[in-house]
């Protein structure tokens, strides 16, 4: 009987005893040390390098192949490849950071989050024995046998299109191939040669207005290229409702809307792949998030029923569909993973925001708001989460506002008004002459007009002021932010009484939603406000507090996390655990239907005041006004 030898793995200190001639990799797997070995001991990847701290003399000699790989990876002294190095005496092995499996990625764009990388699609390199007359096993069974032997993977299925190309790929590549397996269940691609380290996915956030795609390296979680575009469906309506109406009114409406978004996504796919220097067929999976309307239209599911009470979606849970069934040009056998939906109007985009911000892991009472035409609000902590959707309308994005515009060159993005002189100071995007006011400027304008006493707490203009900027035109009060000669449009840029009313309706809906959720959870105040959505990055937090867009909270406890929905889509792409978490969370959030809530009417009307009709709910209001004054 062969003698046993001790092996210790650092830095974890795990140890075990093995018969002589065991490879370091086998020993590591046995004691539960995770060493990355993508090629499965084929001496092709060279990823499994370890540093021998003690017992160098007890190892099998370095072969030419091993040396070649170690050199290619620029390995230092005492480095060996764990997959082929056998030990014949006691050894101490150090596993360097880069060779450890179960890698984590830290996301730091607005959201700071650590995610263990475990993508749904994994790649395996195989070198198959060539068949001959005495070994005439079928190609697929030959691949299965190799997967079982080299990687311990049990029976998996194979996509039909992959099956069709397999015989040729195997023979053209001299039986050295890389197979992609989805969710340990199905072979979705077979590529010639060693491709185990080239694994890509596309995460997509389909917004009503903007569509963003992130080409991501599935093995590192790093973004390789980003592309965005206007949602090409806008020609059929600016908001979700009008698009759903279009789908209801025309027989081929859904077909057309769906084709638009599919074409758009293929364009994004093409662009990011070109930028990264890969072909679109190398992308092996896609994740998609979007509001419920975008979700249904993308999947070509009739969206009618989510737009009509009781607002029931076709499904809540996540869904995997072959990309080719939707006409998307990633690898032929590849899947699209669509994230789950919480409730009628709280969609996969909100679920993505939740898995990116994890309020359900917090002790503190967090309010997560995504400001948009349809604002989604979630409140809670590790105990419980409640959500609602507030029909804020497009005012805060610049629509329905006389001089409202999108955030583009010449848009006034910041405004301050001197309460003494009532004279404004403003800043435009690109420092160009002003053309209009974008979302952040609109919120600033409302806050400053109110702070300067030009607009009263009930939203009404105060016309008893001695300033040429406060005037009445055709019976409608307005405030002149920029005189015609300062602008590039040749007329005064103003904020009218009607504009203020629109802002009141929008902010009232958001604010009422938040307060109703607070009532539901029986809390008087929130500890933290997380503002999601690209728009959130630009909102002035003090202005948001002054008008009462968010509940009373210390200004430093308001955080903007940018496009958290996009981050959530990327997380789902690289983590199967997070996908499960998303499904769990989506069903655990309790959805409150605002429009039928008994206090909605009352809360809504009170919340339309600046900052709120019930001033007790804004105890820091005076202090916030002072903070702005001291800026």
């Amino acid at each position, binding site marked *: 009987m062969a003698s046993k030898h001790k092996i210790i793995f650092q830095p974890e200190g795990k140890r075990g005893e093995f018969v002589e001639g065991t490879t370091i990799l086998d020993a590591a797997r046995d004691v539960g040390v995770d060493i990355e070995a993508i090629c499965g001991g084929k001496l092709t990847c060279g990823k499994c390098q370890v540093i021998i701290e003690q017992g160098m003399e007890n190892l099998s000699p370095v072969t030419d192949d091993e040396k070649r790989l170690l050199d290619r990876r620029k390995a230092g002294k005492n480095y060996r490849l764990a997959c082929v190095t056998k030990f014949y005496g006691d050894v101490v092995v150090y596993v360097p950071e880069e060779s450890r499996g179960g890698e984590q990625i830290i996301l730091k764009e607005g959201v700071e989050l650590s995610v263990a990388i475990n993508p749904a699609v994994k790649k395996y390199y195989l070198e198959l024995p060539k068949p001959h007359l005495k070994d005439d096993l079928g190609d697929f069974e030959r691949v299965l046998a190799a997967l079982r032997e080299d990687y311990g993977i049990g029976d998996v299925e194979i996509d039909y299109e992959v099956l069709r190309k397999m015989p040729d790929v195997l023979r053209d590549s001299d039986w050295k191939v890389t197979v992609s397996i989805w969710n340990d269940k199905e072979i979705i691609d077979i590529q010639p040669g060693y491709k185990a380290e080239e694994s890509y996915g596309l995460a997509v956030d389909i917004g009503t207005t903007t569509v963003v795609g992130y080409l991501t390296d599935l093995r590192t979680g790093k973004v390789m290229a980003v592309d965005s575009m206007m949602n090409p469906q806008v020609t059929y309506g600016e908001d979700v409702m009008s698009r759903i109406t279009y789908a209801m009114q025309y027989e081929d409406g859904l077909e057309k809307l769906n084709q638009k978004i599919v074409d758009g996504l293929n364009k994004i796919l093409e662009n990011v792949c070109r930028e990264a220097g890969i072909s679109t067929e190398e992308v092996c999976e896609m994740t998609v998030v979007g509001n419920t309307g975008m979700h249904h239209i993308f999947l070509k599911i009739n969206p009618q029923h989510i*737009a009509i009470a009781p607002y029931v979606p076709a499904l809540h849970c996540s869904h995997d569909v072959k990309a080719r069934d939707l006409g998307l040009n990633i690898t032929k056998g590849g899947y699209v993973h669509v994230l789950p939906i919480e409730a009628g109007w709280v969609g996969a985009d909100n679920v993505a925001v939740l898995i990116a911000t994890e309020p359900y892991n917090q002790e503190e009472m967090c309010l997560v708001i995504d400001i948009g035409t349809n604002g989604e609000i979630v409140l809670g902590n590790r105990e419980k989460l409640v959500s609602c959707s507030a029909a804020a309308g497009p005012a805060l994005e610049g629509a329905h506002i006389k001089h409202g515009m999108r955030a583009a060159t010449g848009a006034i993005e910041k405004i301050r008004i001197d309460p003494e002189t009532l004279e404004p100071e403003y800043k435009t995007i690109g420092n160009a002459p002003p053309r209009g006011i974008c979302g952040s400027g609109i919120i600033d304008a409302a806050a400053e007009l109110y702070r300067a006493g030009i607009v009263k707490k009930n939203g009404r203009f105060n016309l008893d002021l001695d300033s040429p900027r406060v005037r009445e035109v055709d*019976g409608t009060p307005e405030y002149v932010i920029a005189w015609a000669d300062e602008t590039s449009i040749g007329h005064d840029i103003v904020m009218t009484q009607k504009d203020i009313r629109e802002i009141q309706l929008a902010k009232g809906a958001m604010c009422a939603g938040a307060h109703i959720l607070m009532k539901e959870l029986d809390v008087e105040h929130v500890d933290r406000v997380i503002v999601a959505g690209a728009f959130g990055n630009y909102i002035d937090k003090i202005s948001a507090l002054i008008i009462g867009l968010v509940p009373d909270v210390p200004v430093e406890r308001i955080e903007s996390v940018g496009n958290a929905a996009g981050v959530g889509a990327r997380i789902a792409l690289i983590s199967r655990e997070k996908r499960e978490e998303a499904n769990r969370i989506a069903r655990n959030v309790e959805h409150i239907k605002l429009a039928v809530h008994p206090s909605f009417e009352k809360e809504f009307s009170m919340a339309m*005041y600046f900052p709120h009709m019930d001033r007790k709910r804004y105890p820091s209001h005076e202090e916030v006004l002072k903070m702005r004054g001291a800026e």
Partner: protein
Amino acid sequence: MVDEEKRKDILERLKKGVVEFDEDMVREAAQEALDVGMDALDAIMNGLVAGMEEVGELFDKGEYFVPEVLMCADALYAGLDILKPHVKKEDIKVSGQVVIGVVEGDVHDIGKNLVKMMFEVAGFEVIDLGKDVPLEKFVEESLNTKADIVALSAMMTTTMLGMPKVIEMIREKNPNAKILIGGAPVSKESAEKWGADGWAPDATNAVKEAINMVKGLKKEVMGEE
């Protein structure tokens, strides 16, 4: 009889309470009206309703917005609750019946509630079908009640598509009914296209429309004034 000075004082407080949305003031004045033996209908019409008319004017001028009108309505209802049970049966001159509701698939009812209130203060008997009302129900109720007006509300473009169907169904079975449609997505064009008799684009305009209607109708109700 209540002396004229007292009557004027109570009416003034009812009116003021509604305009300043002070529910307590309204309740107190309404109770006092009953205690001193004032005519309940007089208190309603020349106190509460007169106050609501002023609210309408303030709204027209832009002084008041949706929140104020909603709260004025609460104050008005607080007074009505006290006074209405004491209105003498023979004094009730119903100016007509209205069937009102939010169409199937829609649950947004703030606008509908405002319009409903305006009809009520104008002396209409309002049959409120609520929200998410099946389309056939509008037709049924308009026939059951011989309603003069059927008012339909929708806040979403998707549910608005139910309106032409209801209009067609009502026209077929009850050609004399006046049909009023309202809600954010509704336009003059759609109202004309579907053959509605009147329309209002949003809660605020619905209030204006309803207020105008009240003005016109109140003259008929109160005849002598």
